[in-house]
């Protein structure tokens, strides 16, 4: 405890300076931990397990779709598989990993705080998450949901009890995400180290802050919508059932009012990760810091106003179609600004092509493509043809897989040493990247084509004219699944054989690298004082109260 010396000067009364006592038992240290870094690891492990389960469901689906009229799965099981796959990937994998995982691991460190504002709520958020996942997968025992992750009524009102479990599971996740959002937002507003103005915050913090706001507001709405669906299913309260005066399109409105912001909840943290990794490996300041930061905020704001672009074929009034089309196109502009700024940062750098940057470049390539197809979907007449087809399936995987999941892996390779103290193997990492990148494109690129030609989504079989393409897609999907095993091996291997990382293996300049790896439970011995922005490569470190002798040179 001697290390935990009394902080000095003005810093003592700063809110980031408070600290909870050190954990004194196994349970408090690893299970009901209040430490944001331990909670982050808990999110990573739990989310990783659900990623494997949901991924296996995807492989089963692709096995069924190897050929037309296959009978690997029954039609019912196939419907259940894609519904649970989608729900789990969105709510049990991407959102918890990016917000609960990276947000918890990195954000408090980057703002120079000793924990989040409400550590106990943080623990509660996490412990709502495994039960939600178990409920969702337990729904298979009672007839899992079949109507996709969107669960449009009236069909979702007609399904067996599993759909009610789905409602409960996602409700729990919703509560968890709302609490996390609230917690992070207070943390970012109140607990930044002295001198860290909003425009000196690392870009990941900007992204996490915007995400937190979206989580807090949009996810509360999701909880309400799910409660509506649940009480209609359980007590027959008429909201969505036409026969009782309800309106199925109402669900689409309230669902997408959550789920479009949710798309940005899933991508903004990945933007943040990319914005951290690029300057570190390019060894120069990020190009257009303010534009990237403000575009995050703009995306956050606009994301609440575009939900009905998922509903262009749901009989909206013409003015609604026009309004939502225009707003959707508006949101493409800040997204474009980010992409162009990242590419411009590469100019004139001293680029080290390590695995994290490799994943970021993969992200840029695939996400840009997903963004472009997004614009095609935003135009109402084009969407009339593309809606509900494999084109949409391809688009959303380019954004959520090519975007979020590539971002997650980039972040994992980047912050793994901070989390565990050891580096992941570079060679295995590069093999993982190339295999994943190639298999990803081979899996999802052809889907655009068959979607445009007339293959609808959510089908267990299809017109035999698409057989060849589907077979190719399925084989690629199996290779894609295999590529994750390389990562799994690499991760397990690093526990024993991984190179010891040291505090700052990449020579980065944000605050999380200014302390030992893994970070001690109190994070900062003294709360640092921030003197300027975090990406001034070549200048002296902009921190007081930090050991100045820490190297900011990459170790390899």
């Amino acid at each position, binding site marked *: 405890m001697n290390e935990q010396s009394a902080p000095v000067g003005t810093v003592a009364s700063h809110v980031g300076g408070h600290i909870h*006592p050190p954990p004194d038992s196994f349970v408090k240290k690893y299970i009901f931990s209040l430490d944001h870094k331990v909670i982050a690891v808990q999110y990573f492990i739990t989310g990783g397990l659900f990623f494997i389960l949901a991924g296996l469901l995807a492989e089963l689906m692709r096995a069924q779709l190897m050929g037309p009229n296959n009978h690997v799965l029954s039609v019912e099981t196939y419907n259940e598989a894609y519904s649970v796959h989608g729900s789990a990937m969105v709510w049990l994998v991407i959102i918890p990993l990016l917000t609960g995982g990276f947000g918890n691991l990195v954000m408090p460190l980057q703002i120079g705080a000793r924990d989040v504002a409400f550590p106990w709520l943080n623990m509660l958020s996490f412990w709502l998450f495994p039960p939600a996942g178990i409920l969702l997968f337990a729904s298979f025992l009672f007839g899992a949901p079949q109507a996709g992750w969107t669960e449009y009524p009236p069909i979702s009102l007609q399904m067996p009890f599993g759909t009610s479990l789905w409602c409960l599971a996602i409700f729990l996740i919703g509560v968890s995400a709302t609490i996390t959002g609230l917690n992070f937002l*207070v943390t970012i507003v109140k607990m930044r180290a002295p001198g860290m103005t909003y425009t000196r915050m690392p870009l990941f913090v900007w992204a996490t802050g915007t995400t937190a706001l979206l989580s807090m507001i949009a996810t509360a*709405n999701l909880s309400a919508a799910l409660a509506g669906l649940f*009480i209609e299913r359980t007590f027959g309260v*008429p909201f969505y059932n036409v026969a009782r*005066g309800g*309106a199925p399109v*109402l669900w689409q409105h*309230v669902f997408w009012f959550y789920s479009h912001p949710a798309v940005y909840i899933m991508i903004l943290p990945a933007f943040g990760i990319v914005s951290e990794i690029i300057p570190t490996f390019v060894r120069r300041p990020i190009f257009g810091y303010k534009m990237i930061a403000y575009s995050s905020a703009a995306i956050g704001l606009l994301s609440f106003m575009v939900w009905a672009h998922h509903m262009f074929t749901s009989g909206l009034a013409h003015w609604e179609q026009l309004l939502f089309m225009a707003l959707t196109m508006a949101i493409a502009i800040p997204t474009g600004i980010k992409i162009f700024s990242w590419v411009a940062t590469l100019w004139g750098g001293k680029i080290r092509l390590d695995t994290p940057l490799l994943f970021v470049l993969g992200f840029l390539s695939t996400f840009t493509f997903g963004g472009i197809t997004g614009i095609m979907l935003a135009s109402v007449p084009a969407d009339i043809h593309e809606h509900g087809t494999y084109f949409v399936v391809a688009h959303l995987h380019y954004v959520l897989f090519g975007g979020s999941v590539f971002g997650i892996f980039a972040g994992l390779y980047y912050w793994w040493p901070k989390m565990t103290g050891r580096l992941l193997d570079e060679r295995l990492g590069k093999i993982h990247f190339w295999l994943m990148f190639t298999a990803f494109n081979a899996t999802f690129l052809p889907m655009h084509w068959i979607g445009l030609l007339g293959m609808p989504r959510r089908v267990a079989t299809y017109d035999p004219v698409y057989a060849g393409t589907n077979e190719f897609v399925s084989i690629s999907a199996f290779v894609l699944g295999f590529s994750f095993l390389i990562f799994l091996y690499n991760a397990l291997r690093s526990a024993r054989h991984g190179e010891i990382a040291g505090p700052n293996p990449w020579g980065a300049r944000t605050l999380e690298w200014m302390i030992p790896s893994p970070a001690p439970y109190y994070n900062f011995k003294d709360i640092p004082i921030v003197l300027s922005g975090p990406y001034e490569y070549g200048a002296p470190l902009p921190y007081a109260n930090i050991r100045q002798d820490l190297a900011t040179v990459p170790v390899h």
Partner: protein
Amino acid sequence: MAKALHVPSDAEYADVSSQRLLGFLFFLISDCVIFGDFIFSYLYLRDVAPVWPPPGIERPYLYLAAVNSMVLFGSGATMHYAMEGIRRDRRRQFVAFILATIVLGSLFLAGQAYEYTHLHDTWAGSTFGASFFTLTGLHGFHVLIGVIYLITVFIQTLRGTYTQQRHFGLTAATLYWHFVDVIWVALFFLFYIY
């Protein structure tokens, strides 16, 4: 162990309170969104219905609701004066007004219960009933929680948990109670006036 007994300084208390206040306001915002979702549902269902309320459905009794609203709004005013009592260290003012608030809140719940039992429509009976009972029920649940919350902070205050300087729990309870009031302003308009 020494840590656990640590008594925060005034500055620390102010810092922690400011965090909690912000967190509490964010909680109220997200709660507001939940009400907002069901209000949107109500307006949407009303918009697509050919006639409103649906055929055969009677609206609840207006003037009882008016008196009941007045009771709830009155409790908002008394809660404010209870809070003022703490801020100015006038204990008896605090006790009198918070008790008045608790009584008025319970009266509102009683009025609500009377209204529920005398309506012909039910929760699952029609789209009107669905929205009406979901929204007012959710609100009534908030009032109930609020009454329990007020009783809790009242007892805590009697035990000396809160003082003139340190009373974040009471601030939060007051804000929560005002919030519940203000939600009713919207619900009263939607179900009895609009």
